[in-house]
């Protein structure tokens, strides 16, 4: 079904299939993360994971505006970006469990998913660590005239890193096709960003002559519409862009960060979860606009749940890499 709907309801050119696809992607990320939390709680997953619950509309809205061969760089809280850019559930779970079948043969884990096939230059466990990489990918795109753009995802915490301003300066000087995408989820680890960020962060981009915008990161339609406009502009050669998506991390800094009351209240979390949940907002909108009914959305939920169960089964039963692989891949 590709019924075009009125522009008043969404961005120009967007159809119902695309809206439902975005909803489904968000749902997939949410259910993926819930499963990750469960695997951690049941001690089936080694190490930790930084969950993306609450921020799904950002990755999905932005990646929906990208082409398959456009580049992204991701963060420690990166599962959502990888899935939104097209990663497969089974190989994602396999990587998180340290299995040979994972995206990085088990050598990267939760914080380092990388996949050339989907343009994913890699999640990065150094805050702001990938700003140079994304800028370099944009440099290549411009030099080789490939028409690709690069999106550098980072959180508000990365606004404290000097590297970001070094590369923004160069990207502006050389008009590189890169989008600096700040997911402002209000907390850098266990600290409110209001305690760490001075001034208005949008003006930081303005200092380099980079056009900055902010958008409600809980509304996937708004994120997509804004990202589409920004991506198109950057792809046309207008130089870099800075986009702040205002969002919220529903859960802790990582799966083990359960008692959070010393840095934020349960009431605040509850308010975001009930009033500002990107999935709920989109589901309500789809039904109120009669683009999908609850039965259809419930069916989608069941389908995605089943896909996730299969993917987890695959990952759990997949073998670990044999120990003789430990010294492979150090050098190309």
């Amino acid at each position, binding site marked *: 079904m590709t019924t075009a709907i009125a522009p008043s309801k969404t961005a120009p050119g967007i159809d119902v299939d695309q809206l439902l696809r975005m909803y489904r992607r968000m749902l997939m990320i949410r259910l993926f993360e819930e499963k990750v939390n469960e695997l951690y709680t049941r001690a089936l997953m080694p190490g930790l994971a930084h969950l993306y619950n609450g921020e799904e509309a950002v990755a999905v809205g932005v990646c929906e505006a990208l082409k398959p061969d456009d*580049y992204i*760089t991701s963060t420690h809280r990166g599962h959502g970006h990888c899935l939104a850019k097209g990663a497969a559930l089974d190989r994602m779970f396999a990587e998180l469990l340290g299995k040979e079948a*994972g*995206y*990085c*043969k*088990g*050598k*990267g884990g939760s914080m*380092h998913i*990388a*996949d*050339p096939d989907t343009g994913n*230059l*890699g999640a*990065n466990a*150094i805050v702001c*660590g*990938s*700003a*140079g*990489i*994304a*800028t*370099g*990918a*944009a*440099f*290549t*795109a411009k*030099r*080789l005239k490939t028409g690709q753009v*690069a999106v550098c995802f980072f959180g508000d915490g990365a606004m404290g890193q*000097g*590297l970001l301003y*070094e*590369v923004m*300066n*160069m990207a502006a*000087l050389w008009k590189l096709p890169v989008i600096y995408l700040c997911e402002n989820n209000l907390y850098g680890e266990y600290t409110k960003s209001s305690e760490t960020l001075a001034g208005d962060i949008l003006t930081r981009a303005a200092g380099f002559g980079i056009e900055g915008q902010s958008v409600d990161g809980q509304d996937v339609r708004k994120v997509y519409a804004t990202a589409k406009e920004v991506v198109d502009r950057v792809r046309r050669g207008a130089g870099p862009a800075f986009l702040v998506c205002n969002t919220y991390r529903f859960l802790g800094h990582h799966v083990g960060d359960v008692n959070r009351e010393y840095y934020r209240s349960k009431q605040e979390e509850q308010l975001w979860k009930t009033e500002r949940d990107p999935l709920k907002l989109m589901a309500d909108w789809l039904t109120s606009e009669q683009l999908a009914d609850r039965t259809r959305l419930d069916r989608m939920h069941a389908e995605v749940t089943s896909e996730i169960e299969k993917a987890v089964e695959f990952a759990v039963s997949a073998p670990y890499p044999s120990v003789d692989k430990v010294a*492979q*891949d*150090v*050098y*190309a």
Partner: protein
Amino acid sequence: MPETRELTLGEAVREALAEEMRRDPRVFICGEDIAEAGTVYKVLNGLVEEFGAERVLDTPISEAGFTGMAVGAAMTGMRPVVDVMFGDFSTLVMDQMVNQAAKIHYMSGGKWKVPMVMRATLGATRRSAAQHSQSLHAWFCHIPGLKVVLPSTPYDAKGLMKTAIRDDNPVVFFEDKMMYRLKGPVPAEDYTIPFGVADIKRAGTDVTIVATSSMVQVALGAAKLLEQAGISAEVIDPRTVWPLDEKTLVESVKKTSRAIVVDEGYGRYGVTAEIASVIAEGAFFNLEAPVKRMGAMHVPIPFSPPLEDATVPTEQTVFEAATALCG
């Protein structure tokens, strides 16, 4: 017969870069003051005129930024050569080199490659004081995923630079700033020198002097003095400290039974420590004396000439160490 000219080490590096840039359009250079200025040591003079400002790219003074940009460019199809000017500025690029460039191939399960070269200088005695005189190459040797090159002659510099640019891994290439004007024969034709293959710069039988970068020239000078004293020194240059040609070093010491390791980096936990341990493990039963290590004195490099000169090994101190070892 192929043409061989006398070039300086600086000219040899430039020729290697120019030839690789002609051969492969993906190769570009970026760094501070590298285009019209041709770098502070004029090593890159003339390249911007031939290749243009897009391929000889002057950057802001943002070492971490342009090194990080090079990592991303390398991953996506370019072959960047990053000019970090002074090795002392390694501190500024360390996250990009150590946490990013070095690990990306491994962390991605071998899917992304980072074919880039980071060029930097090392070496003291240029009266540049503590923040422009260090030899910090050992830091990079400590990190799996990086390769570290230390040429000691114009011939080696050209051949090793070509290999570095063609390598699919991040390579750190250190040039001793005191050697840029050192002349030597360099073939005009295309040649490369493989990594991990040491070069016996001078054959000898009584003592092995393993030396790197400008310390090779110091060791060769000492070997002449030793010859006059009746001691035959073998001088070996590993050329790349990682990968390290352990076999050639060990074989030499098995023959001579005595070894001195000379490197301009700090001795403690440094290149000399690693090489001495390789020799001790590989030739222990052939050694007539403990392996002697000589490196920069464990002090920040001082400015005052008599103080600075006292911090680095010289022909005379290497000569004295060797005679003591063979006594």
